[in-house]
């Protein structure tokens, strides 16, 4: 163990990590909690209050006049203001938006037209009138109640039950998986050539790859689409195809892939390659049987980055694949759920979490390679 571990400041280390982790997870936690909240509450109270009982001003509406019953010569409309809410206890009520908390539970409020409203602490209420009441809309009842935390999966249900979400899920996978594997494959071969095969111009090529790391993606969209259309028209195939987007993701991901993989492969012990060569292996054999298995950590880490990127991507998908029903990717589908004018927070929150799930699975399953992968690792003697 590290000797510094034993310093009396260990607790400080724990505390600072805890603090940092809290800082980093807090936003996501907020999202998670928000996604489980009632959608009307989302926009009116902070997510952190969702965990505590809150006092809320609520507007309820009594049933219409058609539900009145005649009792002791009086007309009565009764009901429960708490029905359909999770609120616990009424602490005040009123009948006018001007004075929503004018009365205590159990008190009787005199409505403007002579009707009398009583709301009990348990939420039951009665409107009593001497005359028959009229009007199709019921009386508004304002009340203040303590609302315990309430969570719902409605938001998730809504997102998951949306039409085409399953298909989009598959579309996303169809885009993301080859878009992750193909560049890895291509980059791995290229990286091997750049790391271990002597040929003229190798240094220049490496420099070019590094240079291309920085080309902004947005500016290549139009020239590429034009090219795609040209090619598509020439072969009589649509311009927007899965192959097209795979290649696009491949192109955009290649510089980083080659860069990472070459660095890693160059760090592999030369003797292993040489002994394979002595054993009669060709470059292809060496690559497939020695380099690929040994580079697995690096491949895995790049796979994580590339998968995260392609899975979360919307721009490239929409431009190169289109936004039709049978090609819309998950991110696109979820954004579309927001409606033309956007902004359904409850859908955003739930869908953000749904999109996270797959990358997290990928991350967890490849995580243990990640740390090793980025080391310019040595397999010495092993």
């Amino acid at each position: 163990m590290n000797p510094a571990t034993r310093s009396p400041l260990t607790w400080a280390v724990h505390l600072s990590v805890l603090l940092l982790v809290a800082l980093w997870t807090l936003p996501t936690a907020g999202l998670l909690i928000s996604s489980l909240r009632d959608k009307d509450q989302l926009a009116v109270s902070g997510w952190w209050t969702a965990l505590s009982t809150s006092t809320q001003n609520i507007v309820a509406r009594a049933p219409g006049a058609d539900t009145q019953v005649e009792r002791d010569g009086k007309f009565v409309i009764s009901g429960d203001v708490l029905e359909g809410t999770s609120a616990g206890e009424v602490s005040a009520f009123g009948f006018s938006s001007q004075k929503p908390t004018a009365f205590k539970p159990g008190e009787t409020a005199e409505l403007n037209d002579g009707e009398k409203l009583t709301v009990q602490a348990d939420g039951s209420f009665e409107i009593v009138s001497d005359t028959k009441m009229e009007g199709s809309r019921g009386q508004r009842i304002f009340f203040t109640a303590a609302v315990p935390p309430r969570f719902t999966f409605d938001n998730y249900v809504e997102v998951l039950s949306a039409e085409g979400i399953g298909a989009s899920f598959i579309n996303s996978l169809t885009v993301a998986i080859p878009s992750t594997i193909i560049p890895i494959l291509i980059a791995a071969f290229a990286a091997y050539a750049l790391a271990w095969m002597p040929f003229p111009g190798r240094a220049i090529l490496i420099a070019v790859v590094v240079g291309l790391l920085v080309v902004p993606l947005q500016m290549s969209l139009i020239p590429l689409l034009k090219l795609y259309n040209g090619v598509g028209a020439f072969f009589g195939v649509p311009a927007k195809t899965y192959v097209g987007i795979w290649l696009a993701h491949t192109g955009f991901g290649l510089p980083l892939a080659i860069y990472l993989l070459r660095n890693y492969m160059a760090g592999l012990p030369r003797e292993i390659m040489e002994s394979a060569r002595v054993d009669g292996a060709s470059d292809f054999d060496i690559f497939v049987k020695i380099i690929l298995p040994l580079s697995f950590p690096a491949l895995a880490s790049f796979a994580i980055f590339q998968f995260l990127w392609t899975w979360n991507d919307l721009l490239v998908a929409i431009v190169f694949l289109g936004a039709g029903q049978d090609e819309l990717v998950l991110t696109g589908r979820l954004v579309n759920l927001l409606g033309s004018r956007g902004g359904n927070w409850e859908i955003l929150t739930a869908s953000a979490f749904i999109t996270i799930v797959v990358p997290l699975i990928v991350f967890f399953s490849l995580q243990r390679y990640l740390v090793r992968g980025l080391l310019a690792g040595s397999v010495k003697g092993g």
Partner: protein
Amino acid sequence: ADLKFKPGEDSKFNWASFEEFKKGHDLKGQTLTIFGPWRGEDEALFKSVYAYFVEATGVELKYSSSENYEQQIVIDTQAGSPSDISILPQPGLIGDLASKGYLTPLGDDTQKWLLDNYAAGQSWVDLSTYKGKDGNAALYAFPYKIDVKSLVWYSPENFEDAGYEVPKTMEELKALTEKIAADGQKPWCIGLGSGGATGWPATDWVEDMMLRTQPADVYDKWVKNEIPFNDPAVVGAIDEFGWFAKNDKFVDGGAAAVASSDFRDSPKGLFASPPKCYLHHQASFIPSFFPEGTVIGEDADFFYMPPYDSKKDLGNPVLGAGTLAMITKDTPAARAFIEFLKTPIAHEVWMAQTSFLTPYKSVNVDAYGNPPLKKQGEILLNATTFRFDGSDLMPGKIGAGAFWTGMVDFVGGKSASDVADSVQKAWDAIK
């Protein structure tokens, strides 16, 4: 496809037009791609309409949309891979596409059809006519689905509780505003936030104010930049908006909240207990963002954004918006779809649901799905002047850029003339 209303069943629909269209078109084996601005619920509504087109023609129809449809259409047309039909709510952008030669003229037939069949036909034709790449003006777009923007939303019961009356003139509206403020309450909820499009709700305000302070032709010149953006007329209209939005006492949250509140959240203040505000200026689509269960006409209602009593000569101007369909790739199916839009049934199906207004004279107004829609139809009908949303008519860089940012700066404290100057500067830069 599933048809929302079974052909022939409900007599308020013009089924004859459907049958007739069905007879004249057979597109089996063909594909039609449509790119539109509608997503979510709106997409479902549009789908219920085009289902009839699919049913009638047997075409395979692919609809797609994008959150950033303005960018998407540019990318697609520029790259040469647009859908057959594109539907956009921004005439300015359409003009741009037309000038680059990406649109197919719809021809004189359609122009004549619009003149004949749309109320105030000429204004629709004007709206849909743009200069092409060759410099010649032609009809490039077909208006379909209109929104009314000059609406003020309120809660009738809250008005009742507080004893407020619906104002009939702008003077009354201002008096009401002051009265509410004097009562210690906040009259308005204004939110300009809209992510990347933050600022646009304010442009509607300014346009409404333009139409209420200036004659329609000044509005038209403004939109075409024939008078500069920093013309006193425009600065005046901006200041009129500022009278409401830049007064801490008049707006929920104070002026500072205006720019950053999301436009989707801000109407919720109408329904809070106690109310955070009493008035909200927004187009006809806003009920989608009201709390669940809100009944329009009962829990919430709207009134026409009134004109100035002092400027009676300007009449009852109405600001509106809408979407226009274009042929971005000339195919028989695309042509047929434009023809389809000319059938009453293409309008009535949507009318019978929600948030659809149409100037098509031959449709059965009884088909409107609910009273508020009908009431909006009436406002449209009573209009003495109808003008399309100015920011949508301006070049994209202004109407969907500098104007928005300018408005954000304006509520953020800049003066109206400074803002107008900077927008004009931006306009000069793209000339």
